[in-house]
C-alpha cells in the first residue's frame, strides 16, 4: 500500500432500509492514511450506518467502498479477511461476555491471524497495559466498569494490528466520569498516526485531534471541512444549527 493510496474511499454510496427510507444519500468521502476524521451530526443522520458500511458490517445498496484499495462492496470480496484489517469499536463495547478479558484479546489473534497462544497472550498483555487495564486480564467483562470495558474493546481491536480504526460513538454509553479515560486512549492513538474515523458527539475531542470533520444530516454528507474551519466558520445553515445546539454557550 503506497502512502498516496487513500485508506478509505466512499464513492456515491446509497443505502435504502426500505423503498421509502433512504438512510445514506450519495455519500462520497476519502480518508487518507494517518488521517483522523470525526463524523458528527444529529441522531438518525446515518453516521453509524456509514461507519458500519465502511467495515461491511452493513451492506450498501449501491456505490463503492474501498479500504486500502480493496473493494468491500463487491460480492466477490472476502469480507472476513477485509474486516480483520480494520479495527472497530462499538457504542456498547460488545466484549464477548463469556470470555475473560485476556480471552477477548486473544481469540481473534489466534483464530483469525493464526498466532500462537504465547504470542497472543504477550501482545494482549502489552495492549492491556497500554490502555491501563493491566491486572484485570482474568476478569469477565461484566466485572469491569463501562470505561474499562471500552478500553478493553479498543485493545481487542488493536490486537489485530489494524491498518485503521473505526469508532462508532465510543463514549455515548459511558457515565460522564468515564468518558475521558476512553478519549485519552483515542487521543494517544491519533497522535501515534493511526488512521481513525470516529463517530462522536465529543466536540472537544474533535477539536483536539480531528484533521477533518464530516457533518451529516438526513443521510447526506453536508459538509467536510478541516476541523478549525468547521468550528470557526461552518459553511451550511444545517451545520451552524447543529453546532449551536451541542456546543456550550
Amino acid at each position: 500500500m503506497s502512502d498516496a493510496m487513500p485508506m478509505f474511499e466512499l464513492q456515491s454510496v446509497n443505502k435504502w432500509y426500505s423503498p421509502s427510507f433512504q438512510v445514506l444519500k450519495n455519500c462520497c468521502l476519502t480518508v487518507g492514511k494517518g488521517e483522523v476524521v470525526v463524523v458528527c451530526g444529529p441522531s438518525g443522520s446515518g453516521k453509524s450506518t456509514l461507519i458500519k458500511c465502511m467495515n461491511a458490517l452493513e451492506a450498501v445498496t449501491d456505490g463503492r467502498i474501498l479500504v486500502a484499495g480493496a473493494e468491500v462492496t463487491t460480492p466477490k470480496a472476502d469480507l472476513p479477511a477485509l474486516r480483520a484489517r480494520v479495527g472497530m469499536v462499538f457504542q456498547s463495547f460488545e466484549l464477548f461476555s463469556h470470555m475473560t478479558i485476556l480471552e477477548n484479546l486473544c481469540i481473534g489473534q489466534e483464530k483469525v491471524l493464526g498466532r500462537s497462544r504465547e504470542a497472543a497472550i504477550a501482545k494482549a498483555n502489552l495492549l492491556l497495559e497500554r490502555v491501563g487495564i493491566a491486572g484485570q486480564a482474568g476478569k469477565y467483562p461484566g466485572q469491569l466498569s463501562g470505561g474499562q470495558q471500552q478500553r478493553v474493546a479498543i485493545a481487542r481491536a488493536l490486537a489485530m494490528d489494524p491498518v485503521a480504526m473505526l469508532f462508532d460513538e465510543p463514549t455515548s454509553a459511558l457515565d460522564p466520569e468515564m468518558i475521558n479515560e476512553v478519549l485519552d486512549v483515542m487521543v494517544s492513538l491519533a497522535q501515534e498516526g493511526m488512521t481513525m474515523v470516529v463517530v462522536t458527539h465529543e466536540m472537544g475531542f474533535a477539536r483536539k485531534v480531528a484533521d477533518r470533520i464530516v457533518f451529516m444530516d438526513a443521510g447526506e454528507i453536508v459538509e467536510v471541512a478541516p476541523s478549525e474551519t468547521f468550528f470557526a466558520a461552518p459553511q451550511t445553515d444545517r451545520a451552524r444549527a447543529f453546532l449551536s445546539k451541542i456546543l456550550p454557550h
Partner: protein
Amino acid sequence: MKGWNWQGFFEYLTNTYLFEGALVTLGLTAFSMTAGLILGFFIAVLRMSRFRILSTIASLYIWLFRGTPLLVQLIIIYTGLPQVGIKLSVIQSTLLGLALCEAAYLSEIVRAGITSVPRGQVNAARAIGMREAQIMRYVIMPQALRLIIPPLGNSVNSVLKTTSIASIISMEELLRRTQVLIQEKFLVLELFVVAAIYYLIMTTAWEFVQRRIEARLGKAYGQSAMTGL
C-alpha cells in the same frame, strides 16, 4: 382380591431383568438427546436461514414432528414403512423415531438460545474478521448454551419417560420388560410400581446432575452475568 405381595415387590425391585431394562431406557435417552441435539442444531440453523426455502423446510419438519404423537410416528416407521419396502428392526425404528421427534423439540430450544445472543456480539466477532462458522462456535454457541442448558435438562427428564412409548413396538426397555414379567407372574400392581420407582430414581438422579451443571454454568461467567447480562 389378591392383595399386595411384598415378597414379589422386593424380588422385582432387585431383578436384573428389569434393571437391564432401565439401562436400555437410559441408553435410549442418551441417544435421542445426542442425536436429537445434533439434528436439532442443523434444523435450527436451517430455520433461521436467509433462504426462504430452507427455513420453510425446517418449519415443516418441526410442524410435522411436534404436531403428531411419537406413538403414531413409531408405528408408522415400524409397522407402516415395510409396506413401501423400508424394513427397519425394532431398535432401528425406535432410535430413528426418538431422534427425529426429539430433534423437532430441541431445535426450537437451540433456536431460542441462538436468537437470544445480542446482535452486537455477532457484529463484534465479524469486526475482528471471524468467519461465520467461527462466530457460531466461539461466540454464539457458548453464550446460547447458558440459555439452552436449563430447558435441555427438562428435556432429558421428559425423554426418560417418553422412551416408554417404544414399548408399543416391543422395544425391550423398562416398561416393555415390566409388561413381559406381568404376563408371566400376574403381579400387575407390584410390577408397575417397581417400574414407576425405577423411573423416579432415574429422573431424580438426573435432577441432581442438572442442578450441578447449572450451578457450574452460573459460576463460569462472573457475578454480573448471573443477574443477566
